[in-house]
Protein backbone atom coordinates (compact mmCIF):
# COMPACT_ATOMS: atom_id res chain seq x y z
CA UNK A 1 0.00 0.00 0.00
CA UNK A 2 1.23 3.49 -0.86
CA UNK A 3 2.43 5.67 1.99
CA UNK A 4 0.15 8.38 3.38
CA UNK A 5 1.53 11.86 2.81
CA UNK A 6 -1.18 14.12 4.15
CA UNK A 7 -3.74 13.54 6.86
CA UNK A 8 -6.79 15.66 7.66
CA UNK A 9 -7.99 15.12 11.21
CA UNK A 10 -11.48 16.17 12.28
CA UNK A 11 -11.40 19.16 9.97
CA UNK A 12 -14.42 21.39 9.70
CA UNK A 13 -15.47 24.45 7.77
CA UNK A 14 -19.05 25.59 7.71
CA UNK A 15 -20.07 28.56 5.61
CA UNK A 16 -21.38 31.61 7.38
CA UNK A 17 -24.83 32.61 6.20
CA UNK A 18 -25.90 36.22 6.76
CA UNK A 19 -29.07 36.40 8.84
CA UNK A 20 -29.62 40.12 9.30
CA UNK A 21 -32.07 41.31 11.91
CA UNK A 22 -32.99 44.81 13.05
CA UNK A 23 -31.14 44.30 16.29
CA UNK A 24 -28.15 42.57 14.63
CA UNK A 25 -27.74 43.63 11.00
CA UNK A 26 -24.43 41.74 10.68
CA UNK A 27 -25.62 38.52 12.32
CA UNK A 28 -24.54 35.26 10.73
CA UNK A 29 -25.32 31.63 11.33
CA UNK A 30 -23.38 28.54 10.44
CA UNK A 31 -24.61 26.96 7.24
CA UNK A 32 -23.61 23.98 5.13
CA UNK A 33 -20.00 22.95 4.80
CA UNK A 34 -17.71 20.14 5.85
CA UNK A 35 -18.14 18.57 9.27
CA UNK A 36 -15.60 16.56 11.27
CA UNK A 37 -13.92 14.99 8.28
CA UNK A 38 -11.02 12.55 8.52
CA UNK A 39 -9.10 11.73 5.36
CA UNK A 40 -5.65 10.49 4.39
CA UNK A 41 -4.07 11.12 1.02
CA UNK A 42 -1.61 8.56 -0.34
CA UNK A 43 1.44 9.04 -2.52
CA UNK A 44 0.71 8.32 -6.18
CA UNK A 45 -2.95 7.47 -5.58
CA UNK A 46 -5.94 8.97 -7.35
CA UNK A 47 -8.85 9.62 -5.04
CA UNK A 48 -12.22 10.19 -6.64
CA UNK A 49 -14.35 12.41 -4.47
CA UNK A 50 -17.95 11.89 -5.47
CA UNK A 51 -21.21 13.26 -4.25
CA UNK A 52 -24.32 14.99 -5.54
CA UNK A 53 -24.54 18.73 -6.12
CA UNK A 54 -24.19 20.59 -2.84
CA UNK A 55 -22.47 17.68 -1.08
CA UNK A 56 -19.48 19.86 -0.17
CA UNK A 57 -16.92 18.68 -2.72
CA UNK A 58 -15.77 22.17 -3.71
CA UNK A 59 -15.72 23.31 -0.09
CA UNK A 60 -13.58 20.33 0.88
CA UNK A 61 -11.16 20.93 -1.99
CA UNK A 62 -10.88 24.60 -1.05
CA UNK A 63 -10.12 23.58 2.52
CA UNK A 64 -7.49 21.15 1.26
CA UNK A 65 -6.03 23.89 -0.92
CA UNK A 66 -5.66 26.25 2.05
CA UNK A 67 -8.18 28.71 0.61
CA UNK A 68 -10.82 28.19 3.27
CA UNK A 69 -9.57 28.13 6.86
CA UNK A 70 -10.09 25.12 9.08
CA UNK A 71 -12.50 26.06 11.85
CA UNK A 72 -11.53 22.95 13.78
CA UNK A 73 -9.14 20.04 13.30
CA UNK A 74 -5.63 19.86 11.96
CA UNK A 75 -3.61 18.75 8.97
CA UNK A 76 -0.50 16.59 9.32
CA UNK A 77 2.11 15.68 6.76
CA UNK A 78 4.73 12.96 6.55
CA UNK A 79 7.78 12.93 4.35
CA UNK A 80 9.17 9.44 3.78
CA UNK A 81 9.30 7.50 7.03
CA UNK A 82 9.58 10.54 9.25
CA UNK A 83 7.15 11.41 12.03
CA UNK A 84 3.89 13.16 11.24
CA UNK A 85 4.24 16.91 11.55
CA UNK A 86 1.63 19.65 11.53
CA UNK A 87 1.29 21.52 8.23
CA UNK A 88 1.80 25.27 8.61
CA UNK A 89 0.65 26.31 5.15
CA UNK A 90 -1.18 23.85 2.93
CA UNK A 91 -0.68 26.05 -0.11
CA UNK A 92 3.00 25.15 -0.29
CA UNK A 93 2.14 21.44 -0.64
CA UNK A 94 -0.99 21.56 -2.72
CA UNK A 95 -1.76 22.52 -6.30
CA UNK A 96 -5.39 23.43 -6.88
CA UNK A 97 -7.36 23.46 -10.10
CA UNK A 98 -10.72 25.17 -9.49
CA UNK A 99 -13.88 24.07 -11.23
CA UNK A 100 -14.22 26.87 -13.73
CA UNK A 101 -11.54 29.42 -14.45
CA UNK A 102 -12.39 31.72 -17.34
CA UNK A 103 -8.84 32.62 -18.26
CA UNK A 104 -9.41 35.96 -19.92
CA UNK A 105 -7.57 39.07 -20.90
CA UNK A 106 -4.90 40.12 -23.33
CA UNK A 107 -2.07 38.59 -21.37
CA UNK A 108 -0.48 35.47 -22.84
CA UNK A 109 -0.44 31.88 -21.60
CA UNK A 110 3.22 32.13 -20.73
CA UNK A 111 2.89 35.47 -18.95
CA UNK A 112 0.01 34.34 -16.74
CA UNK A 113 2.04 31.29 -15.70
CA UNK A 114 5.07 33.51 -15.04
CA UNK A 115 2.88 35.74 -12.89
CA UNK A 116 1.49 32.83 -10.87
CA UNK A 117 4.97 31.34 -10.77
CA UNK A 118 6.23 34.55 -9.16
CA UNK A 119 3.57 34.17 -6.46
CA UNK A 120 4.83 30.64 -5.86
CA UNK A 121 8.53 31.26 -6.40
CA UNK A 122 8.71 28.93 -9.40
CA UNK A 123 11.69 29.01 -11.75
CA UNK A 124 11.18 30.00 -15.40
CA UNK A 125 12.53 26.71 -16.77
CA UNK A 126 9.90 24.87 -14.72
CA UNK A 127 7.22 26.84 -16.56
CA UNK A 128 8.65 25.77 -19.92
CA UNK A 129 8.54 22.15 -18.77
CA UNK A 130 4.93 22.55 -17.60
CA UNK A 131 3.85 24.08 -20.91
CA UNK A 132 5.37 21.07 -22.59
CA UNK A 133 3.71 18.65 -20.18
CA UNK A 134 0.19 20.00 -20.74
CA UNK A 135 0.70 20.46 -24.48
CA UNK A 136 0.56 24.24 -24.57
CA UNK A 137 4.13 24.81 -25.78
CA UNK A 138 2.92 25.89 -29.22
CA UNK A 139 0.28 28.18 -27.71
CA UNK A 140 2.41 29.90 -25.09
CA UNK A 141 2.18 33.29 -26.80
CA UNK A 142 -1.56 33.05 -27.38
CA UNK A 143 -3.74 35.61 -25.61
CA UNK A 144 -6.01 34.13 -22.95
CA UNK A 145 -9.10 35.47 -24.73
CA UNK A 146 -8.30 33.26 -27.72
CA UNK A 147 -8.06 29.94 -25.87
CA UNK A 148 -10.59 27.16 -26.35
CA UNK A 149 -12.24 25.47 -23.36
CA UNK A 150 -9.89 22.50 -23.61
CA UNK A 151 -6.83 24.75 -23.65
CA UNK A 152 -8.16 26.67 -20.67
CA UNK A 153 -8.46 23.41 -18.75
CA UNK A 154 -4.88 22.55 -19.72
CA UNK A 155 -3.77 25.96 -18.54
CA UNK A 156 -5.63 25.40 -15.27
CA UNK A 157 -3.78 22.18 -14.64
CA UNK A 158 -0.46 23.81 -15.56
CA UNK A 159 -1.21 26.53 -13.02
CA UNK A 160 -2.04 23.89 -10.42
CA UNK A 161 1.26 22.13 -11.08
CA UNK A 162 3.40 25.22 -10.48
CA UNK A 163 5.72 24.62 -7.57
CA UNK A 164 5.72 20.81 -8.03
CA UNK A 165 2.96 20.09 -5.50
CA UNK A 166 2.81 16.82 -3.58
CA UNK A 167 -0.97 16.89 -3.79
CA UNK A 168 -3.03 17.93 -6.80
CA UNK A 169 -6.68 18.88 -6.36
CA UNK A 170 -8.90 18.84 -9.43
CA UNK A 171 -12.43 20.19 -9.07
CA UNK A 172 -14.74 18.78 -11.75
CA UNK A 173 -11.91 18.74 -14.30
CA UNK A 174 -13.96 17.10 -17.06
CA UNK A 175 -16.53 19.89 -17.28
CA UNK A 176 -16.62 21.25 -20.79
CA UNK A 177 -14.13 18.77 -22.22
CA UNK A 178 -14.92 16.79 -25.34
CA UNK A 179 -14.24 13.02 -25.20
CA UNK A 180 -10.84 13.35 -26.92
CA UNK A 181 -9.70 16.10 -24.58
CA UNK A 182 -11.07 14.14 -21.60
CA UNK A 183 -9.06 11.09 -22.67
CA UNK A 184 -5.88 13.18 -22.99
CA UNK A 185 -6.60 14.71 -19.61
CA UNK A 186 -7.05 11.29 -18.01
CA UNK A 187 -3.70 10.14 -19.40
CA UNK A 188 -2.02 13.25 -18.05
CA UNK A 189 -3.48 12.65 -14.60
CA UNK A 190 -2.28 9.04 -14.65
CA UNK A 191 1.22 10.17 -15.65
CA UNK A 192 1.30 12.56 -12.72
CA UNK A 193 0.11 9.86 -10.32
CA UNK A 194 2.87 7.57 -11.61
CA UNK A 195 5.35 10.28 -10.68
CA UNK A 196 4.13 10.08 -7.08
CA UNK A 197 1.70 13.00 -6.99
CA UNK A 198 -1.34 12.34 -4.82
CA UNK A 199 -4.39 13.38 -6.81
CA UNK A 200 -7.89 14.20 -5.63
CA UNK A 201 -10.58 14.54 -8.28
CA UNK A 202 -14.06 15.69 -7.46
CA UNK A 203 -16.91 14.82 -9.72
CA UNK A 204 -20.61 14.17 -9.64
CA UNK A 205 -20.18 11.79 -12.59
CA UNK A 206 -18.78 8.49 -11.33
CA UNK A 207 -18.69 7.06 -14.84
CA UNK A 208 -16.07 9.64 -15.83
CA UNK A 209 -13.82 8.52 -13.00
CA UNK A 210 -14.26 4.83 -13.64
CA UNK A 211 -11.15 2.98 -14.66
CA UNK A 212 -8.52 5.36 -13.42
CA UNK A 213 -9.23 6.20 -9.79
CA UNK A 214 -7.92 3.75 -7.23
CA UNK A 215 -9.67 5.16 -4.19
CA UNK A 216 -13.12 6.62 -3.75
CA UNK A 217 -14.60 9.00 -1.21
CA UNK A 218 -18.36 9.35 -0.89
CA UNK A 219 -19.36 12.82 0.22
CA UNK A 220 -22.86 13.75 1.17
CA UNK A 221 -24.14 16.73 3.13
CA UNK A 222 -20.68 17.72 4.21
CA UNK A 223 -19.74 14.33 5.58
CA UNK A 224 -17.46 11.67 4.22
CA UNK A 225 -19.69 8.59 4.28
CA UNK A 226 -17.01 6.15 3.22
CA UNK A 227 -13.51 6.27 1.78
CA UNK A 228 -10.98 3.71 0.68
CA UNK A 229 -9.82 1.53 -2.21
CA UNK A 230 -12.61 1.13 -4.75
CA UNK A 231 -13.06 -2.61 -4.20
CA UNK A 232 -13.09 -2.28 -0.40
CA UNK A 233 -15.78 0.39 -0.46
CA UNK A 234 -17.82 -1.62 -2.96
CA UNK A 235 -17.63 -4.65 -0.69
CA UNK A 236 -18.49 -2.66 2.43
CA UNK A 237 -21.56 -1.21 0.74
CA UNK A 238 -22.60 -4.48 -0.86
CA UNK A 239 -22.11 -3.22 -4.38
CA UNK A 240 -19.42 -5.70 -5.40
CA UNK A 241 -19.68 -8.85 -7.52
CA UNK A 242 -22.76 -7.79 -9.42
CA UNK A 243 -23.40 -8.88 -12.97
CA UNK A 244 -25.98 -8.08 -15.56
CA UNK A 245 -26.92 -10.62 -18.13
CA UNK A 246 -29.52 -10.31 -20.89
CA UNK A 247 -30.87 -12.31 -23.77
CA UNK A 248 -33.62 -12.65 -26.34
CA UNK A 249 -36.73 -14.80 -26.38
CA UNK A 250 -38.77 -16.13 -23.52
CA UNK A 251 -36.78 -18.00 -20.92
CA UNK A 252 -37.81 -19.44 -17.59
CA UNK A 253 -34.81 -18.30 -15.56
CA UNK A 254 -36.05 -20.05 -12.41
CA UNK A 255 -35.87 -23.33 -14.20
CA UNK A 256 -32.59 -22.72 -16.01
CA UNK A 257 -30.76 -21.47 -12.94
CA UNK A 258 -32.23 -23.98 -10.52
CA UNK A 259 -29.70 -25.17 -7.97
CA UNK A 260 -27.28 -22.27 -8.49
CA UNK A 261 -26.54 -20.16 -5.44
CA UNK A 262 -27.07 -16.56 -6.50
CA UNK A 263 -28.65 -13.38 -5.19
CA UNK A 264 -31.18 -11.99 -7.66
CA UNK A 265 -31.14 -8.20 -7.54
CA UNK A 266 -33.37 -7.32 -10.48
CA UNK A 267 -35.14 -9.29 -13.12
CA UNK A 268 -37.08 -7.94 -16.09
CA UNK A 269 -38.88 -9.62 -18.94
CA UNK A 270 -40.59 -8.05 -21.94
CA UNK A 271 -41.43 -8.83 -25.56
CA UNK A 272 -37.87 -8.21 -26.77
CA UNK A 273 -36.19 -10.38 -24.21
CA UNK A 274 -35.12 -10.53 -20.63
CA UNK A 275 -32.39 -9.27 -18.28
CA UNK A 276 -31.15 -10.35 -14.90
CA UNK A 277 -28.98 -8.50 -12.40
CA UNK A 278 -27.47 -10.79 -9.80
CA UNK A 279 -24.65 -11.35 -7.36
CA UNK A 280 -22.97 -14.74 -7.42
CA UNK A 281 -20.66 -16.93 -9.44
CA UNK A 282 -20.99 -15.44 -12.92
CA UNK A 283 -19.12 -18.29 -14.65
CA UNK A 284 -21.49 -20.83 -13.20
CA UNK A 285 -24.53 -18.82 -14.29
CA UNK A 286 -23.10 -18.33 -17.76
CA UNK A 287 -22.34 -21.99 -18.13
CA UNK A 288 -25.83 -23.00 -16.95
CA UNK A 289 -27.54 -20.71 -19.45
CA UNK A 290 -25.34 -21.64 -22.41
CA UNK A 291 -25.65 -25.36 -21.73
CA UNK A 292 -29.46 -24.91 -21.82
CA UNK A 293 -29.23 -23.22 -25.28
CA UNK A 294 -30.33 -19.84 -23.95
CA UNK A 295 -29.49 -17.05 -26.43
CA UNK A 296 -27.50 -14.32 -24.68
CA UNK A 297 -27.07 -10.79 -25.98
CA UNK A 298 -24.91 -9.28 -23.22
CA UNK A 299 -23.02 -10.19 -20.11
CA UNK A 300 -21.02 -7.75 -18.03
CA UNK A 301 -20.03 -6.89 -14.50
CA UNK A 302 -22.21 -4.07 -13.17
CA UNK A 303 -20.40 -0.99 -11.90
CA UNK A 304 -22.38 1.11 -9.42
CA UNK A 305 -23.33 4.68 -10.34
CA UNK A 306 -23.35 7.68 -8.05
CA UNK A 307 -26.94 7.20 -7.02
CA UNK A 308 -26.32 3.58 -6.04
CA UNK A 309 -23.21 4.54 -4.10
CA UNK A 310 -25.07 7.20 -2.16
CA UNK A 311 -28.19 5.14 -1.58
CA UNK A 312 -26.07 2.27 -0.32
CA UNK A 313 -23.98 4.51 1.93
CA UNK A 314 -26.87 6.47 3.41
CA UNK A 315 -29.59 3.85 3.39
CA UNK A 316 -31.82 6.48 1.83
CA UNK A 317 -34.05 6.44 -1.19
CA UNK A 318 -32.88 8.31 -4.27
CA UNK A 319 -35.86 10.69 -4.05
CA UNK A 320 -34.96 11.65 -0.48
CA UNK A 321 -31.41 12.40 -1.50
CA UNK A 322 -32.40 14.56 -4.45
CA UNK A 323 -34.95 16.49 -2.40
CA UNK A 324 -32.37 17.26 0.25
CA UNK A 325 -29.98 18.57 -2.36
CA UNK A 326 -32.71 20.77 -3.79
CA UNK A 327 -33.45 22.29 -0.39
CA UNK A 328 -29.74 22.72 0.46
CA UNK A 329 -30.68 22.18 4.08
CA UNK A 330 -27.96 21.29 6.50
CA UNK A 331 -29.31 18.55 8.68
CA UNK A 332 -27.63 15.84 10.71
CA UNK A 333 -26.79 12.91 8.50
CA UNK A 334 -28.99 9.82 8.75
CA UNK A 335 -26.74 6.85 8.44
CA UNK A 336 -27.66 3.45 7.13
CA UNK A 337 -27.58 2.06 10.67
CA UNK A 338 -29.90 4.75 11.98
CA UNK A 339 -32.30 4.10 9.13
CA UNK A 340 -32.33 0.44 9.99
CA UNK A 341 -33.00 1.18 13.64
CA UNK A 342 -36.03 3.19 12.68
Amino acid sequence: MAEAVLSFLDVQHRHKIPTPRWSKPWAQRLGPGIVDLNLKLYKGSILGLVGPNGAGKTTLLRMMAGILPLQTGSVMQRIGNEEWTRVADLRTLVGHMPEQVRWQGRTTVRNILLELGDMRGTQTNRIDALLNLVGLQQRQDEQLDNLSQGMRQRLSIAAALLGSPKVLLLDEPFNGLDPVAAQAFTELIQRLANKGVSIVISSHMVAQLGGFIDRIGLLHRGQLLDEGPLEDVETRLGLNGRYMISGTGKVDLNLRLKGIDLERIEETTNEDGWSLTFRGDSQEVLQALLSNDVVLSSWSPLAPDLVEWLCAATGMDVRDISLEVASSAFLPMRTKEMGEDE
Partner: protein
Amino acid sequence: MSDFRRIRSMAARIRRERLFGIRMNIMLPILLLFLPGMAWGFSDPNIILPGGHQPSTAMEVLFYASLGVVFGATMCAVLLSFDGVSRDRASGMLEVRLAQPMPRQHQATALVLGYLQSILIPVYGLMVLCLVIVRIRMGEWTSLEETLVYFASTGLILLWYTLFALLASTTAKEQGTAVAFGVGVWFFFTFLWALVTTMVAYASGVAVGEANDPGWVALEGALDLLSPNGVYHHLLETQLPSVDRGVPMWQTWAAAIAWTVLPWWGLQRRMEALVP
Protein backbone atom coordinates in the same frame (compact mmCIF):
# COMPACT_ATOMS: atom_id res chain seq x y z
CA MET B 1 12.26 35.21 -4.59
CA SER B 2 11.89 37.55 -1.62
CA ASP B 3 8.50 38.75 -0.40
CA PHE B 4 9.31 42.29 -1.51
CA ARG B 5 10.17 41.16 -5.03
CA ARG B 6 6.98 39.12 -5.23
CA ILE B 7 4.90 42.14 -4.25
CA ARG B 8 6.79 44.34 -6.70
CA SER B 9 6.37 41.82 -9.50
CA MET B 10 2.62 41.44 -8.94
CA ALA B 11 2.17 45.22 -8.69
CA ALA B 12 4.15 45.71 -11.91
CA ARG B 13 1.91 43.24 -13.71
CA ILE B 14 -1.24 45.12 -12.60
CA ARG B 15 0.36 48.45 -13.51
CA ARG B 16 1.25 47.28 -17.02
CA GLU B 17 -2.17 45.80 -17.57
CA ARG B 18 -4.01 48.95 -16.48
CA LEU B 19 -1.61 51.55 -17.82
CA PHE B 20 -1.90 50.24 -21.38
CA GLY B 21 -5.49 49.07 -21.21
CA ILE B 22 -8.54 50.44 -23.00
CA ARG B 23 -9.81 52.15 -19.87
CA MET B 24 -6.71 54.31 -19.70
CA ASN B 25 -7.22 55.35 -23.33
CA ILE B 26 -10.68 56.55 -22.39
CA MET B 27 -9.53 58.34 -19.26
CA LEU B 28 -6.46 60.08 -20.59
CA PRO B 29 -8.43 62.76 -22.49
CA ILE B 30 -10.45 63.38 -19.32
CA LEU B 31 -7.29 63.76 -17.28
CA LEU B 32 -5.76 66.01 -19.94
CA LEU B 33 -8.81 68.23 -19.84
CA PHE B 34 -9.03 68.35 -16.06
CA LEU B 35 -5.37 68.73 -15.05
CA PRO B 36 -3.35 70.75 -17.61
CA GLY B 37 -6.61 72.29 -18.84
CA MET B 38 -7.43 73.73 -15.43
CA ALA B 39 -3.83 74.79 -14.84
CA TRP B 40 -3.97 76.65 -18.14
CA GLY B 41 -7.27 78.31 -17.26
CA PHE B 42 -6.45 79.33 -13.71
CA SER B 43 -3.03 80.68 -14.70
CA ASP B 44 -4.60 83.13 -17.15
CA PRO B 45 -3.28 86.57 -16.08
CA ASN B 46 -6.70 88.08 -16.72
CA ILE B 47 -8.79 85.54 -14.84
CA ILE B 48 -11.22 86.88 -12.23
CA LEU B 49 -12.69 84.23 -9.96
CA PRO B 50 -16.10 84.55 -8.28
CA GLY B 51 -15.84 87.13 -5.52
CA GLY B 52 -13.37 89.13 -7.57
CA HIS B 53 -10.44 87.02 -6.46
CA GLN B 54 -7.40 86.65 -8.67
CA PRO B 55 -4.77 83.93 -8.10
CA SER B 56 -1.48 85.64 -7.47
CA THR B 57 1.04 82.81 -6.87
CA ALA B 58 1.90 79.60 -8.71
CA MET B 59 0.82 77.50 -5.69
CA GLU B 60 -2.51 79.31 -5.57
CA VAL B 61 -3.09 78.42 -9.22
CA LEU B 62 -2.22 74.78 -8.52
CA PHE B 63 -4.58 74.84 -5.53
CA TYR B 64 -7.48 75.92 -7.75
CA ALA B 65 -6.38 73.52 -10.49
CA SER B 66 -6.47 70.72 -7.90
CA LEU B 67 -10.21 70.67 -8.55
CA GLY B 68 -9.20 68.66 -11.59
CA VAL B 69 -7.67 66.07 -9.30
CA VAL B 70 -10.78 65.97 -7.10
CA PHE B 71 -13.22 65.71 -10.00
CA GLY B 72 -11.19 63.85 -12.61
CA ALA B 73 -8.23 61.93 -11.22
CA THR B 74 -10.08 60.45 -8.24
CA MET B 75 -12.88 59.31 -10.55
CA CYS B 76 -10.29 57.67 -12.81
CA ALA B 77 -8.69 55.98 -9.79
CA VAL B 78 -12.08 54.49 -8.89
CA LEU B 79 -12.86 53.42 -12.45
CA LEU B 80 -9.46 51.75 -12.80
CA SER B 81 -9.61 49.76 -9.60
CA PHE B 82 -13.30 49.11 -8.90
CA ASP B 83 -13.02 45.55 -10.27
CA GLY B 84 -9.56 44.83 -8.89
CA VAL B 85 -10.87 41.84 -6.95
CA SER B 86 -14.43 41.33 -8.20
CA ARG B 87 -13.32 40.69 -11.79
CA ASP B 88 -10.98 37.93 -10.63
CA ARG B 89 -13.73 36.53 -8.44
CA ALA B 90 -16.17 36.44 -11.36
CA SER B 91 -13.67 34.73 -13.65
CA GLY B 92 -12.45 32.19 -11.10
CA MET B 93 -8.94 33.68 -11.10
CA LEU B 94 -9.31 34.77 -7.49
CA GLU B 95 -9.42 31.14 -6.40
CA VAL B 96 -6.23 30.44 -8.36
CA ARG B 97 -4.47 33.42 -6.79
CA LEU B 98 -5.65 32.64 -3.26
CA ALA B 99 -4.34 29.08 -3.67
CA GLN B 100 -0.79 30.39 -4.16
CA PRO B 101 1.46 30.44 -1.10
CA MET B 102 1.94 34.21 -1.29
CA PRO B 103 0.43 35.65 1.92
CA ARG B 104 -2.89 37.38 1.36
CA GLN B 105 -1.69 40.57 3.01
CA HIS B 106 1.12 40.73 0.48
CA GLN B 107 -1.36 40.16 -2.31
CA ALA B 108 -3.44 43.04 -0.95
CA THR B 109 -0.38 45.28 -0.82
CA ALA B 110 0.51 44.38 -4.39
CA LEU B 111 -3.05 45.17 -5.49
CA VAL B 112 -2.94 48.59 -3.86
CA LEU B 113 0.49 49.43 -5.26
CA GLY B 114 -0.35 48.17 -8.75
CA TYR B 115 -3.60 50.09 -9.06
CA LEU B 116 -2.18 53.19 -7.39
CA GLN B 117 0.79 53.26 -9.75
CA SER B 118 -1.45 52.86 -12.77
CA ILE B 119 -3.29 56.10 -11.96
CA LEU B 120 -0.36 57.88 -10.32
CA ILE B 121 1.97 57.64 -13.31
CA PRO B 122 -0.25 59.52 -15.80
CA VAL B 123 -1.45 61.96 -13.13
CA TYR B 124 2.09 62.80 -12.01
CA GLY B 125 3.14 63.20 -15.63
CA LEU B 126 0.31 65.65 -16.20
CA MET B 127 1.09 67.46 -12.93
CA VAL B 128 4.61 68.10 -14.17
CA LEU B 129 3.00 69.52 -17.28
CA CYS B 130 0.84 71.72 -15.02
CA LEU B 131 3.97 73.08 -13.34
CA VAL B 132 5.46 73.92 -16.74
CA ILE B 133 2.22 75.57 -17.91
CA VAL B 134 2.05 77.70 -14.78
CA ARG B 135 5.71 78.65 -15.24
CA ILE B 136 5.10 79.70 -18.84
CA ARG B 137 1.89 81.60 -18.09
CA MET B 138 2.93 83.25 -14.81
CA GLY B 139 6.72 83.23 -15.10
CA GLU B 140 7.00 81.55 -11.72
CA TRP B 141 7.91 78.06 -10.44
CA THR B 142 6.47 76.66 -7.24
CA SER B 143 9.00 76.22 -4.41
CA LEU B 144 10.43 72.77 -3.66
CA GLU B 145 8.30 72.43 -0.51
CA GLU B 146 5.13 73.46 -2.36
CA THR B 147 5.89 71.00 -5.14
CA LEU B 148 6.52 68.17 -2.70
CA VAL B 149 3.27 68.85 -0.81
CA TYR B 150 1.38 69.15 -4.12
CA PHE B 151 2.65 65.76 -5.32
CA ALA B 152 2.44 64.01 -1.94
CA SER B 153 -1.11 65.14 -1.21
CA THR B 154 -2.26 64.21 -4.71
CA GLY B 155 -0.65 60.82 -4.27
CA LEU B 156 -2.48 60.42 -0.97
CA ILE B 157 -5.95 61.30 -2.28
CA LEU B 158 -5.49 58.88 -5.17
CA LEU B 159 -4.37 56.22 -2.69
CA TRP B 160 -7.49 56.78 -0.59
CA TYR B 161 -9.86 56.42 -3.53
CA THR B 162 -7.95 53.39 -4.79
CA LEU B 163 -8.33 51.82 -1.34
CA PHE B 164 -12.06 52.61 -1.23
CA ALA B 165 -12.60 51.07 -4.66
CA LEU B 166 -10.59 47.93 -3.84
CA LEU B 167 -12.35 47.57 -0.52
CA ALA B 168 -15.68 47.74 -2.34
CA SER B 169 -14.38 45.25 -4.86
CA THR B 170 -13.58 42.70 -2.16
CA THR B 171 -17.05 43.05 -0.70
CA ALA B 172 -19.02 43.00 -3.93
CA LYS B 173 -20.06 39.66 -5.34
CA GLU B 174 -20.45 41.07 -8.82
CA GLN B 175 -19.15 43.97 -10.90
CA GLY B 176 -22.27 46.15 -10.73
CA THR B 177 -22.17 46.37 -6.94
CA ALA B 178 -18.45 47.08 -7.01
CA VAL B 179 -18.79 50.01 -9.41
CA ALA B 180 -21.88 51.32 -7.62
CA PHE B 181 -20.05 51.28 -4.28
CA GLY B 182 -16.85 52.86 -5.66
CA VAL B 183 -18.62 55.56 -7.65
CA GLY B 184 -21.08 56.08 -4.81
CA VAL B 185 -18.29 56.87 -2.34
CA TRP B 186 -16.69 59.19 -4.89
CA PHE B 187 -20.00 60.93 -5.55
CA PHE B 188 -20.73 61.27 -1.84
CA PHE B 189 -17.44 62.96 -0.97
CA THR B 190 -17.19 64.98 -4.16
CA PHE B 191 -20.75 66.27 -4.53
CA LEU B 192 -22.78 65.47 -1.46
CA TRP B 193 -20.31 66.42 1.22
CA ALA B 194 -21.27 70.08 0.79
CA LEU B 195 -24.82 69.06 1.66
CA VAL B 196 -23.64 67.24 4.78
CA THR B 197 -21.63 70.31 5.80
CA THR B 198 -24.64 72.55 5.22
CA MET B 199 -26.94 70.33 7.26
CA VAL B 200 -24.52 70.15 10.17
CA ALA B 201 -24.03 73.92 10.02
CA TYR B 202 -27.78 74.49 9.98
CA ALA B 203 -28.28 72.13 12.91
CA SER B 204 -25.47 73.90 14.79
CA GLY B 205 -26.99 77.34 14.22
CA VAL B 206 -24.11 78.50 12.05
CA ALA B 207 -24.85 80.85 9.13
CA VAL B 208 -24.60 78.62 6.08
CA GLY B 209 -22.19 79.64 3.31
CA GLU B 210 -21.10 82.90 4.93
CA ALA B 211 -17.47 82.99 3.89
CA ASN B 212 -16.73 85.83 6.30
CA ASP B 213 -18.39 84.16 9.28
CA PRO B 214 -15.62 82.61 11.46
CA GLY B 215 -18.12 80.06 12.80
CA TRP B 216 -18.93 78.77 9.33
CA VAL B 217 -15.25 78.70 8.29
CA ALA B 218 -14.25 76.78 11.42
CA LEU B 219 -17.11 74.30 11.09
CA GLU B 220 -16.43 73.70 7.41
CA GLY B 221 -12.72 73.26 8.15
CA ALA B 222 -13.40 70.74 10.92
CA LEU B 223 -15.91 68.76 8.89
CA ASP B 224 -13.52 68.66 5.95
CA LEU B 225 -11.22 66.47 8.05
CA LEU B 226 -13.89 63.79 7.77
CA SER B 227 -13.76 63.84 3.99
CA PRO B 228 -10.79 62.72 1.85
CA ASN B 229 -11.34 65.65 -0.52
CA GLY B 230 -11.42 68.02 2.43
CA VAL B 231 -8.20 66.62 3.87
CA TYR B 232 -6.61 66.95 0.42
CA HIS B 233 -7.47 70.63 0.33
CA HIS B 234 -6.30 71.10 3.90
CA LEU B 235 -2.95 69.59 2.88
CA LEU B 236 -2.63 71.96 -0.06
CA GLU B 237 -3.73 74.90 2.10
CA THR B 238 -0.72 74.31 4.34
CA GLN B 239 1.22 75.98 1.51
CA LEU B 240 -1.19 78.93 1.22
CA PRO B 241 -0.34 81.44 3.96
CA SER B 242 -3.40 83.57 3.15
CA VAL B 243 -5.79 80.73 4.04
CA ASP B 244 -6.57 79.93 7.65
CA ARG B 245 -9.58 77.75 8.43
CA GLY B 246 -8.64 77.14 12.03
CA VAL B 247 -7.31 73.59 11.54
CA PRO B 248 -3.77 73.07 12.85
CA MET B 249 -1.32 71.35 10.55
CA TRP B 250 -0.94 68.37 12.89
CA GLN B 251 -4.67 67.70 12.69
CA THR B 252 -4.51 67.78 8.92
CA TRP B 253 -1.65 65.29 8.80
CA ALA B 254 -3.27 63.13 11.50
CA ALA B 255 -6.44 62.99 9.39
CA ALA B 256 -4.32 62.13 6.33
CA ILE B 257 -2.69 59.27 8.24
CA ALA B 258 -6.07 58.05 9.48
CA TRP B 259 -7.53 58.11 5.96
CA THR B 260 -4.51 56.07 4.82
CA VAL B 261 -4.25 53.56 7.64
CA LEU B 262 -7.91 52.73 8.27
CA PRO B 263 -8.96 51.72 4.75
CA TRP B 264 -5.63 49.93 4.22
CA TRP B 265 -6.17 47.97 7.41
CA GLY B 266 -9.74 47.27 6.32
CA LEU B 267 -8.54 45.97 2.97
CA GLN B 268 -5.97 43.71 4.61
CA ARG B 269 -8.65 42.29 6.89
CA ARG B 270 -11.05 41.76 4.01
CA MET B 271 -8.36 39.97 2.03
CA GLU B 272 -7.64 37.68 4.97
CA ALA B 273 -11.30 36.68 5.14
CA LEU B 274 -11.90 36.60 1.41
CA VAL B 275 -13.80 33.63 0.02
CA PRO B 276 -13.69 33.00 -3.74
